């Protein structure tokens, strides 16, 4: 499986480290509850997810992309 690095080109996924973008649902309003959600809870979607990857073997910069977690297809 490959990821497209805008700085370096298409590279195997093993060159990258995974990072996540957290988002707390608006429905959670209590400040402490929001803090717990941000720290621990995960959307863990089955489908497209926007995510961050650090290109540790190449430019050592973060890239942002969308991936479908069902197929691993980069969108």
């Amino acid at each position, binding site marked *: 499986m490959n990821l497209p690095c805008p700085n370096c*080109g298409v*590279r*195997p996924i093993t060159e990258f480290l995974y990072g996540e973008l957290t988002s707390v649902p608006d429905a959670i309003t209590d400040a402490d509850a929001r803090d717990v959600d941000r720290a621990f809870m995960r959307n863990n979607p089955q489908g497209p997810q926007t995510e961050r990857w650090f290109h540790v*073997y190449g430019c050592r910069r973060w890239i942002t992309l969308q991936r479908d977690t069902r197929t691993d297809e980069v969108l």
Partner: protein
Amino acid sequence: MPKLDRFPLTRIVSTPALLDGIQTSTTAIVMRTAPDELFWLGSPAAPVINDPHAIIEHDTSFVGTWLSTQAATAWVSANCEWQLPTTRPVFAQGEVAGLPVKLWIEPRRMLVLVQQPFAADLGERLQ
């Protein structure tokens, strides 16, 4: 085992726009490792950049070797999962033989560079 040499270079970290504006040289090797970072190897010395916040470091930690095109092709074919760019000269970086390498590819030869902590393994894996 091929002999690895030290390739002291200048690392410049600045804004992408200022790095875009740097005139490349016909004699020095200029590697754009990231939008905000550039390696300058060889003479003339790296040009002065108009950024008081730029980080300009003389970096002595890179070691490597020049491979003939034939040796480079064989090594890459056995050790590299990704496809090298086809233009020459060209800079490329990524994982080769399990190591984070920087490649400078010329029509008739290729420079393989790694940072010192990987040098011993590069030496073994170039065999």
